[in-house]
């Protein structure tokens, strides 16, 4: 078990940079996830760690060993790195039985026969493949193939696991189950794991820490809670969480001593504890973000619109089992609210309130989070 360090990693294909100056430290035993839309450089980074791809610039360290450095002309071949990789299409050898597939990494390393049989059997038991050892890959289901690929990766006890979208080809139900199994297995083995996915739910549920990547650039690194509660910029805020965070353009104005966010359709006071951070932005265009679960429907009290509440029209109601999604509209402003129950009907007006402490504010020019 080792840590993985990446320093100033850059890889360019033709004229487009797949990774730009990536710096990253993955801790020993950590479950680390690269998250981002497809083509953002996640897999390229993974291949550079495995040694299957030579970067144009930068270094890769596995523990204390420098394995890739274009500057110092160091390159340890993938065969000599103690890393195991699992591919999205599983890449199990079609002409070999399950046993031979799992035994392959041990055989090429010259382990002796009895040791190979012992370890393959143990791995097959762990993954529930004991009954399938004589089968060929084409006789297996998708889930079974996925486990064979996993078995081949863990049988040689590598120091680092690299997993490239390992659940992408499974059906939805199996994916949820395998997610849990995989996380449990990783805890048991304690192997440093780097996992690539474009599915934010997968990332949020499994990772110790997540790196969000876009166009080869790191947007944010942090624990799932940090990314969810304190997104560093608009991209992360929008990418993580389902349904997506609500965004509204607004202007910061000062009335007397108080700061207000003016979104034309409504105006909301800036909580006093964050006001100092916003002082310098008075008069500037900002983007306010609020997650659907931080919006509430206020039970209508007799009389006119409540203070801080926004009266909006219900466009659509989506029941999602444990909660309902209200799609609301007022003028050019539309919001999604997640509520437990509602008496409102489509077309009716409801009063919506928000928790000001859960508000996110982004600078419109830089897209960076201010609070």
């Amino acid at each position: 078990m080792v840590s993985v360090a990446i320093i100033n990693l850059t890889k360019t294909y033709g004229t487009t940079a797949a990774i730009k100056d990536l710096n990253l430290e993955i801790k020993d035993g950590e479950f680390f996830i690269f998250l981002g839309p497809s083509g953002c450089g996640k897999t390229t980074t993974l291949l550079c760690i495995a040694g299957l791809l030579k970067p144009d610039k930068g270094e890769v360290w596995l523990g204390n060993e420098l394995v890739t450095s274009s500057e110092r002309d160091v390159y340890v071949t993938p065969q000599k790195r103690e890393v195991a990789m699992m591919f999205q299409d599983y890449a199990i050898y079609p002409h070999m039985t399950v046993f031979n597939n799992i035994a392959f990494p041990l055989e090429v390393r010259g382990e002796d026969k009895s040791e190979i049989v012992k370890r393959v059997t143990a791995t097959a038991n762990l993954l529930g493949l004991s009954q399938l050892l004589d089968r060929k890959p084409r006789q297996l289901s998708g889930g079974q193939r996925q486990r064979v690929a996993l078995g081949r990766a863990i049988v040689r006890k590598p120091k680092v696991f690299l997993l490239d979208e390992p659940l992408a080809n499974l059906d939805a139900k199996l994916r949820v189950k395998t997610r849990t199994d995989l996380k449990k297995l990783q805890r048991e083995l304690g192997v440093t794991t780097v996992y690539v996915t474009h599915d934010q739910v997968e990332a949020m549920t499994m990772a110790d820490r997540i790196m969000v990547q876009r166009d080869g650039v790191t947007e944010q690194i942090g624990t799932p809670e940090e990314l969810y509660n304190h997104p560093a910029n608009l991209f992360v805020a929008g990418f993580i969480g389902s349904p997506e965070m609500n965004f509204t353009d607004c202007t910061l104005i000062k009335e007397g001593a108080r700061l207000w966010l003016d979104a034309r359709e409504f105006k909301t006071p800036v909580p006093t504890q964050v006001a100092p951070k916003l002082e310098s932005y008075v008069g500037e265009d900002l983007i306010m973000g609020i997650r659907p679960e931080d919006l509430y429907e206020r039970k209508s009290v007799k009389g006119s619109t409540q203070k801080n509440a926004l009266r909006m029209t219900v466009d659509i109601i989506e029941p999602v089992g444990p909660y309902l999604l209200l799609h609301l509209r007022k003028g050019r402003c539309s919001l999604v609210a997640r509520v437990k129950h509602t008496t409102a009907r489509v077309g009716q007006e409801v009063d919506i309130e928000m928790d000001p402490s859960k508000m996110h504010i982004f600078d419109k020019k830089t897209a960076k989070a201010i609070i």
Partner: protein
Amino acid sequence: MRFPKPRRVTLYILLVFFAFLFLLPLWTCITTSFKPVHDVIYTTPVELPLSPTAEPLITALNIMQRPLLNSFTFTISAMILSCLLGSINGYILTKIRFRGSDTVFLFFSIGIFIPYQAVLVPLVLTMSKLGLFNHIEGLILTHTAYGIPITTLLFRNFYGVIPNSLIMAAKTDGAGTWTIYRRIVLPLSLLPFVVAAVFQFTSIWNDFLFGVALARGSEAQPASVALANLRGTTEFQWNVQMAGTLWYALPVLVIFFVLGKYLMRGYMAGAVKG
């Protein structure tokens, strides 16, 4: 009972007619091989022999025995060598890749289009310098070299379909370039091997020009050249010639009967996935 549509019927009639047309030479070859000289003169080639005899076949075999053995030796050797080398080339060009590998492949492709006649003189000179003129080894070397471009192209196209992830997985599993070829790529290559082998066998077996240039009249003379010599100088022994042709055509016919279905599949595989 439903009758097939008239268009279908027309199609089948046409197909049967053309099949008949294409099989006619083979038919006359077989009938004539069993005819004594008298029958050759008094019957048309299409007719059955009046008094069938195996004598022309035996005579032809006696003359063709050594050349047929020669042809088998160099055809099978050159076939195996060119297929193996083509397979290794295809693997390196698709899965290992290196700076300039596309240029190297371009040169291989050019090799396919060099006509035999263009290299004849330098070839004969080179072979006599190497001391391989009138030797089986010379024919093996020439046919292997001439086969490499086409087998390389064939294997390269096939290996393009093998997913790269398979190779990458084998690399991280600890297998080196040669182990990956032997343990992963080679076992997956049955189909292209059959296609390349049949192709190489037929084209080397059928070659006349290299044979006549490099080994005419010698101990190493190939069957194609011996067959041409059967014609004789003073009289035409049609029945012996036809019998010789039959012996000469037999191996190729057998191969196509046995491996035909693989061949079709191989061509298809190449066609669907460019």
